[in-house]
């Protein structure tokens, strides 16, 4: 396959996943900002959404200050933000269009339909409409994933599309987990208190994992167990360990199809081994935030290795 084709498929996968992630972050912010709390909890919630999306610098440079209005606009619609939901869906569609013949009709219709929907839905400003908009974005990513898994041949086109999605999802889960680090508890609120509990619960809800948490741990929500679920639990499809497992398996399928392994396979396998050798106590001891920063940087290194090996 042409490297450009693989690259376009890979980025189609990444951008669609990112659009979904932004919708989840914004949902979390809407929910957290609605909490009855003292001392500007709402403003903190919106600022944390910007930090979690990894666009603090761009947001500050644009001259905006965090508020419900500016953050919603910046993360969902802003033309000057290349990582807004609208920009992600548009970029996914542009990539998909340039390799249209590598896609099934169903997959193309899912992506093109999402792009058409951007114009039809416009920029809802009322909170109710905005929440429905976020629901629509999540639906778009479900349709995209359903169409790809139900209609595509299991060949390199499929592996590159899914590889992009898995690398992006690993990045996103790590950032979402880090939201909690950016969410300072206001003075007078204690760790393990009502607000702290609500914040952790919201995170679980945003990765559609609150029920899963109850099934797995059968106790009330505790920070280290939430972290365990989102970092190490292999049953949880968004966990870092699961994402890493998917990345390894997609890279292995490519290596098998092509008859050749390379740096990307080696880096990915080594990381998976490290997941299997660690536990949540060790991670908390060395600091969850530091662990996440290291994970994000390794994830970037892996993405760079994939790029060098296949996409140039």
């Amino acid at each position, binding site marked *: *396959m*042409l*490297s*450009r084709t693989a690259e376009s498929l890979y980025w189609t996968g990444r951008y669609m996943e990112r659009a979904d992630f932004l919708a989840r972050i914004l949902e979390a912010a809407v929910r957290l900002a609605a909490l009855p709390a003292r001392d500007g909890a709402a403003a903190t919630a919106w600022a944390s959404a910007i930090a979690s999306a990894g666009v603090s610098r761009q947001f500050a440079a644009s001259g905006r200050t965090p508020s419900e209005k500016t953050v919603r606009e910046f993360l969902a619609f802003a033309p000057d933000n290349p990582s807004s939901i609208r920009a992600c869906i548009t970029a996914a569609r542009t990539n998909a269009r*340039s390799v249209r*013949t590598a896609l099934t009709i169903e997959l193309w219709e899912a992506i093109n339909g999402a792009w058409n929907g951007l114009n039809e839905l416009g920029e809802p400003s009322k909170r109710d409409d905005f929440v429905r908009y976020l629901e629509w974005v999540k639906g778009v990513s479900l349709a995209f994933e359903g169409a790809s898994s139900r209609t595509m041949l299991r060949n390199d086109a499929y592996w590159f599309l899914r590889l992009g999605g898995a690398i992006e999802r690993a990045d996103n889960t790590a950032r979402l987990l880090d939201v909690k680090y950016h969410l300072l508890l206001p003075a007078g609120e204690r760790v393990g208190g009502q607000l702290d509990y609500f914040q952790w619960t919201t995170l679980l809800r945003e990765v559609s994992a609150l029920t899963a948490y109850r099934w797995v741990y059968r106790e009330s929500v505790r920070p280290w167990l939430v972290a365990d679920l989102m970092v190490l639990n292999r049953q949880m499809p968004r966990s870092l360990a699961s994402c890493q497992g998917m990345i390894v398996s997609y890279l292995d399928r490519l290596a098998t199809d*092509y008859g*050749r392994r390379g740096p990307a396979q080696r880096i990915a396998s080594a990381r998976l081994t490290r997941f299997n050798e660690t536990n949540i106590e060790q991670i908390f001891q060395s600091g969850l935030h530091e662990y996440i920063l290291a994970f994000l940087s390794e994830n970037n290194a892996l993405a760079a290795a994939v790029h060098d090996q296949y*996409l140039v």
Partner: protein
Amino acid sequence: MSGHAGSDQVRHSYRTLARWLEAAPADLLQARSRQAELFFRRMGVTFAVYGDVESNERLIPFDVVPRIIGAAEWDQVERGLKQRVSAINAFLKDIYGAQECIKAGIVPAELIFTNPHYRPEMQGRRPPGDIWTHICGVDLVRTGEDGFVVLEDNCRTPSGVSYMLENREMMMRLFPDLFAEHRIRPVETYTDMLLASLRASAPDSAGADPNIVVLTPGPFNSAYYEHSFLADKLGVELVEGGDLFVNDDIVFMRTTEGPRRVDVIYRRIDDEFIDPLTFRPDSAVGIPGLMSAYMAGNVTLSNAIGTGVADDKAVYTYMPEIIRFFSGGDPILGNVPTWRCREPEALKEVLAKLPELVVKEVGGSGGYGMLVGPASSTAEIEAFRAKLIADPDDFIAQPTLALSTAPTLCPDGGLSPRHVDLRPFVLSSPAGVRVAPGGLTRVALKAGSLVVNSSQGGGTKDTWVLDD
């Protein structure tokens, strides 16, 4: 229903269709027409129109009434096309080689050497099998009962063949019973023929299984749909400039499994954009070093560099003499009578009857830069007259009677004659010259309009060549 301008008789080849239409329900054609449009839109069979910001992806209007050509007449056309394109290939070989036709006074030297599409880099070069224009689209019009004449040769990157194929698909879907009542020669073999031609044109270095690619400027090009369609049908990669690179005069494409050698490039990019090192340095769609690999004989470009010199509108006027010179016989397909405005006598005549003529810029294409006398205001004609006098070398003129008509579905549901032309696609390879039976019929949808170009709002029809 009329076969050509000025005749009310039903052409023989249309009799079965005419009977069928009389028996069909009144609104059938309109219903089928709407079905066709829905289907084309869903499949994204589109044509981009430059400068049209509102909708850069537009459907080409499709007319559901087929154009029908009888077997005997087509056989004559096919012989003529083979003769003409063989002569064009011989002419290009000669221009870039011995230049006998210039020495013999057949074509004026300055017409060749000052031609913007003449490539001095190609002087003394011989592409594999001496094939220069592997794919040639010849625009034909009917001028009367005695058959077709050539309006224009397209030897560089002729487009439209995807519509020839898609239109047939559409008609078979919409009117299966009509196909049962006619014996229509299939056009679907075109892509097989194209693949065979490209394979046969590979350089000797390529071995038994040459690697063929289609080169496109990218998704924003007006004919991108066609490029991806052809790559799909041929089963080859659709590449952009950035997908290829040249190392040691060998062309490679970048794949997920490493560099892969490329032997034949069916390129849909014009000469001047193909290699920024040789031609336009500002071209971002080309491949640096491609010309050097081409000169080394390591890759076949289809069509060859420099073929544009043969489809120039000024060279066109010499085509009957060129055919005689290289084939030794009379041209089977004539030209439209044409005045060369570069000749003072002809210019005088053209200026005298400007309102009756079509005047074309020698280097123009796509219906741009032309005057259609009968459809123009006095002011437009006078403005054009000034341009013509200022630079007569740049223009040729033709009578307007030259375009025939074919029955076409109108918005009111009735059939009316509309002007048409026909672009058959002629494939040349060292193994011979072949023509798909039929071609792309383009139709001017406005009553009286002579402009059939899709960039100017023209439409297309399926073209049926009967087998008996």
